[in-house]
């Protein structure tokens, strides 16, 4: 065998080992999360989580997000459109992975607004004003208070509710679950427990399309 052939062969062997190893590792992890998705209570399915779409939808997108994350903001609208394009078939479950400093406090405000029935309005507003309150240098939860004041919420109740032990427990449980599921980046998506092969909106759309077909059209 000639020298350059040996090197090409060696490099190819190493890269194939890397790819195959990665495939099996992700495969293994995906099996675990798919099993979780079928349970009623697991790190992937929590009864307390905010959802969008019919309860009997057979395709469930679980999204771990951080209200301070720019990419999460950019995914918000396309994911809602994705639900609309398969009416009645897809449900979205919102979970929290507040990795940015101070983001957990913002999640508490969001959950407190949910108690007053304004989850989606508040979330939209938080994303809209994100560039103002979620600067990477100095996240500013105080500015969030100014922001949500425009929503017509009972602000006194909101200030009381943010420290509700139930809300704190939700945030803590979501962070623990994100860690258990290996969500290190946001947004982190699971479609019926399956993860995308690589990160991207198109990959998510493809995965949802594939799951809708598997659940409804065979």
């Amino acid at each position, binding site marked *: *065998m*000639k*020298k*350059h052939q*040996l*090197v090409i062969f*060696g*490099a190819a062997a*190493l*890269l194939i*080992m*890397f790819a195959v*190893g*990665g495939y099996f*590792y*992700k495969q293994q992890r995906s099996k675990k999360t798919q099993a979780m998705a079928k349970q009623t209570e697991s790190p992937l399915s929590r009864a307390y989580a905010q959802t969008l779409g019919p309860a009997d939808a057979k395709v469930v997108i679980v999204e771990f997000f951080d209200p301070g994350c720019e990419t999460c903001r950019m995914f918000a609208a396309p994911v809602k459109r994705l639900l609309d394009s398969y009416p009645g078939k897809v449900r979205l479950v919102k979970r929290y992975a507040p990795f940015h400093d101070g983001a957990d406090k913002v999640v508490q405000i969001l959950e407190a607004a949910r108690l007053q029935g304004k989850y989606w309005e508040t979330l939209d507003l938080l994303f809209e004003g994100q560039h103002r309150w979620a600067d990477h240098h100095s996240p500013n939860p105080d500015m969030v208070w100014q922001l949500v004041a425009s929503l017509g919420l009972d602000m006194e109740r909101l200030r009381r509710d943010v420290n509700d032990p139930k809300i704190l427990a939700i945030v803590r449980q979501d962070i623990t679950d994100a860690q258990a599921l*290996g969500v*290190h*980046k946001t947004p982190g998506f699971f479609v019926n427990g399956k993860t995308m092969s690589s990160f991207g909106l198109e990959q998510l759309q493809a995965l949802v399309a594939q799951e809708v077909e598997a659940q409804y059209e065979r």
Partner: protein
Amino acid sequence: MADATDSVDTNWALLFACWLLVSAASLGSLFFSEVMELPPCTLCWYQRIFMFPLPILLAMGLFPFDAKVVRFALPIAFLGWVVAAYHLLLHVGVIPEGVSPCSRGVSCKTKYLDIFGFVSIPLLSLLAFSSVITLLLILRRRLA
């Protein structure tokens, strides 16, 4: 073979083995961080600093074969070995904990991997650096 420069002799094979080793170690490190998504600690990054350039360096020494590469690669591999040894001592607790302040981010004492109860990432790193240094020293002696 008619072309002598393209046939494999022992020295070239040794350097090739070295290259395979450092390439495998670099990819293994990337596997930990990119596939398993374990965040590298600061000492891990310093070991990467002395490991990742080696595949490039040794590849340059393979085509055409150039014994000089051994001399250039050895000090880099040696520094990597020192960092890996320090990391392992810190990891198993020989270097007492707490001599340095706690900082944000990944602690260098975090034990991510644990095969058979003693195989850790710093141990794998130290083994890789030790092997590559041994191979390079053998090669240097043969070429002297």
